[in-house]
């Protein structure tokens, strides 16, 4: 029983972070059909900005919006500079574009803030709650709750507002959206802004409970990528389920003594799961699947 509790508590922040990341990834994917491999890097830069702005003296309630807005701008910028120009080549080329963005953001962050990791400004207070015989830090619990808030917020935005409707339709069928008076490009940019902002939220909170480091923090998005893939890339609920699976697995494995000794076993399991899901879902090529050109 105690072991189960440990596993649950360990998983909560992971599930929280991965869920926020993968929600953003899915929103972006639905709008652009591109997998944003720079997602983690956008989160990382926003976290650094938040840290810098906080240390410069700005109070929490001002620093947070600034950093989240910066994330949104980053999202818009990556789409505008790295994805849109390659739209005539292929979605694969656009995905490689996001790789280039990743590289630039990581290198840039290393140059400006140094490549050594350090602690980050906290959002939630220090300390922990004790449940049974285990404890969970406020920051970790906070991650999970913020994830719930973000999920709810996204749900309301997309399902209950006019803007959300416009975006969903534009993602579903850009040509029809155009014919109804909605500029599909604007809707796409909006999706990337949402993606960037949510990534920023996750990055800030995650840095507070782990570490602020250009590469390490950026790569935290890779499990989220796996989560989005498992969830099917097509739906927000799917993203949440995928995050639960991935976060749960990473929390579960250290709790199992037999697997504990094998370093990286969680990652192996997740890889096999992801590859299995992809291979099972793939289908024989159909007549419409043809694209020429390099990359």
């Amino acid at each position, binding site marked *: 029983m105690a072991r189960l509790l440990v596993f649950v508590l360990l998983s909560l922040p992971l599930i929280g972070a991965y869920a926020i990341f993968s929600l953003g990834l899915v929103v972006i994917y639905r709008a652009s059909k591109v997998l944003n491999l720079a997602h983690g890097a956008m989160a990382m830069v926003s976290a650094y900005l938040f840290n810098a702005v906080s240390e410069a003296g700005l109070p929490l309630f001002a620093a947070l919006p600034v950093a989240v807005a910066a994330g949104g701008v980053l999202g818009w910028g990556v789409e505008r500079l790295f994805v849109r120009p390659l739209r005539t080549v292929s979605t694969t080329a656009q995905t*490689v574009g996001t790789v280039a963005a990743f590289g630039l953001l*990581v*290198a840039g962050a290393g140059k400006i803030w140094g490549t050594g990791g350090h602690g980050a400004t906290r959002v939630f207070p220090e300390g922990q709650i004790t449940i049974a015989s285990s404890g969970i830090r406020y920051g970790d619990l906070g991650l999970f709750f913020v994830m719930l808030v973000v999920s709810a917020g996204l749900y309301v935005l997309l399902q209950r507002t006019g803007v959300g409707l416009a975006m969903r339709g534009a993602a579903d069928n850009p040509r029809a959206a155009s014919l109804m008076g909605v500029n599909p490009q604007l809707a796409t940019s909006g999706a990337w802004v949402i993606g960037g902002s949510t990534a920023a939220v996750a990055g800030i909170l995650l840095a507070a409970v782990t570490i602020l480091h250009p590469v390490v923090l950026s790569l935290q998005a890779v499990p989220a990528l796996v989560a989005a893939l498992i969830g099917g890339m097509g739906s927000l609920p799917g993203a949440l389920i995928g995050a639960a699976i991935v976060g749960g697995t990473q929390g579960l494995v250290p709790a199992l003594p037999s697997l504990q000794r094998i370093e990286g076993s969680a990652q192996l399991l997740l890889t096999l799961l992801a590859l299995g899901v992809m291979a099972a879902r793939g289908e024989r090529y159909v007549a419409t699947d043809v694209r020429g050109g390099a990359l």
Partner: protein
Amino acid sequence: MSAAAESVAAAPAVKQREWRWVGNPLVLLLVAFVLLFPWLPFVSFSLLGTANLAAYYAMVAVSLVVLTGWVGQISLGQAGLVGVGAYVTGHVVRGLHVTFPVNLLWAAAAGAIVAIALGFVAVRVRGLYLAVATLIFSWMASEFLFRQRWFIKNAEVTLKPFGDPDAFPYFDWTSRRTYFYGAWAVVAAAVYLMANLRDSKTGRAFFAVRGSEVAAASMGISVVRTKLTAFAISGALAGVAGNLLLIRDQVITADSFKVEVSLFFLAIAVVGGLSSLGGAVAASILFAGLNEVFFRVEAFAGWLEVVPPVLLTAVLLLYRGGLAALGEAIQRRISPWTDKVSVLLRQRVLPAIAGAATGARRTVASAVRRAGEVPAESLNAEPEPRTPLRRRLPAPIASALARIPTSRTIPTQPRLDLDAVVASARPSQNGNAPHPVETVEPSAPSTDVALPSGAPLTWRTIQLPPVSLAAAREDRPILIEAAGVTVRFGGLVAVNNVSLTVREHEIVGLIGPNGAGKTTTFNSIAGLNEPTEGRVFIYGHDVTTWTVDQRARLGVGRTFQAIQLLPQLSVFENLLVATHVHNESGLLSHLFVGPITLAAERDGRRQVRRVAELLELEEYLDRRVADLPFGVLRMVEVARALVSGARLIMLDEPASGLDNNETERLAQILRFVRDLGVTLLLIEHDVQMVTSVSDYMYVLEYGALLAEGTPADIQRDPRVIAAYLGEEAEPVLEEASA
């Protein structure tokens, strides 16, 4: 003017690589520089180390060129493959005491095996999903595999020198100079082998799969086999790179194989131009050189990290051809001078030196080009080809291998013999196209009336003996039969119990209004969807479950409504891909330019020229597909099907997008193709064109067969007229006050 000089004067429109690089004074200078490099005065110890680093980068970059550049399979996981090669080398050196050159094979094998496993995933997922799969693999490798003690325990090695310090062949691999020659020799060998591969049947299959998997399959290329081959080769090369890394440093750490490193490798390949071997090597030297520069110059300290992503971004967005395109641009600028020197060298200096000095003899491209300089008659006297490796194996092994099901168990149909057909042609009387078919007994004797020598044999200038069809359709042999084919997509019945036949030497038209199910039926016959019910027979074989490339081996070719040609290649290169099925050469023969490959290449090129001549496409052969008008490209697709030797060609809306004149010409050419001995099945919306060309027609409506018969019957059938124009209806509106 000598033949060589003439070739220089007639500048080729599309790159002829072998001409540019062989005997090119720049290249010779470069080779000399490389050979002397470690001894040059300004080359310091650290610079030599950088040069060695460049060799390692070059090896990885080449592996990416093959996989991502040529086959279009994005890999964000090369670092994982390199790591596997490196750690396995460690095991082999310390555990099995295998010395340097030999342990390369082990590294290659390890890399290839792991890559093939990735390849199986690649077969199922496309494009960006594959990129992510490889990324996840790289992540898993660095988080899991490269932390397992049993796997990484031999990460540090002591290299035993080769030979005796006092005798001549003595290689101390810890010496940077020795390593320099060894590593770059390996890189050079890899580039040489890959260059041969690129110009061979395997290379063409790679490009075809990248350009259009459907078109590649329709020419008999097994997409699965091609992709797995590419992964295997790329994995082998990456493994070798890992080996080089371990030998260079004598120790490796997992840091060298992290996820970011995979992205760095991709950056090198992209900056090089992704599809170019030379570009990959150049980019490797550039990136390695950056290390050196940034260490030396104080002001740049700390900026090294930023440069690779900046370069990647710049190339991706601004100059996608990368260093390769840059090199070509420079080459074009200085070619007037270098060509003159090249000619001099080839005429005077090089013939004096044995062929080995230029290396020209043993590349496919140059060997074939030399064949082109040989008078035409001797092309017909082909050297005795040696039997392929497979057939020379002892009988029990050969028969065991034969039992492994591959696409070769489908008997490849003999190719349509164009030479024999054309030999029986007469000059066309008044320049008109051949006449329509007659249903009489075959009687026209072939008269060997010679055309004026040098005159091209085209569809306009020759007349073929009329094809005879048995008067009663039931007596004509059946080539295609669709029996009760029904195709359901979810709840929708697209094709409902359709039965049709295509008989030998016929031209059959399949028409119907929009949404009638023509394309779906066509695709069932072609192999692009599997009928829910019913069966499809081609040449008597039940092909209902066969894949597209398996059907192509029966001698079925096709054209596409949306042109599926490779836009960056020339017409000639596009047509050459279609020789795939009848090209018997194997992978080893491609890599080492065996005589089978040479014979097959000569044969294939002759086939392409023959077909191009017949269809009057010779003037376009060296032009890039992307530069040609649409009407020409439609002809090229027909030519491509003919080059593959198909006796049965299916055409998907061949007249779509053509104007009246072009449609006219298409109809004449289709009749000519039939007279060559080919059977045709076409779907078309231009009913007028189909009725003028077909011997028999089928009309579909709402997924079911509405009518069949001769064109004259169809045009007058009131049901068909109603299907196209709709039922008669009472006018509803009053006269409008327009």
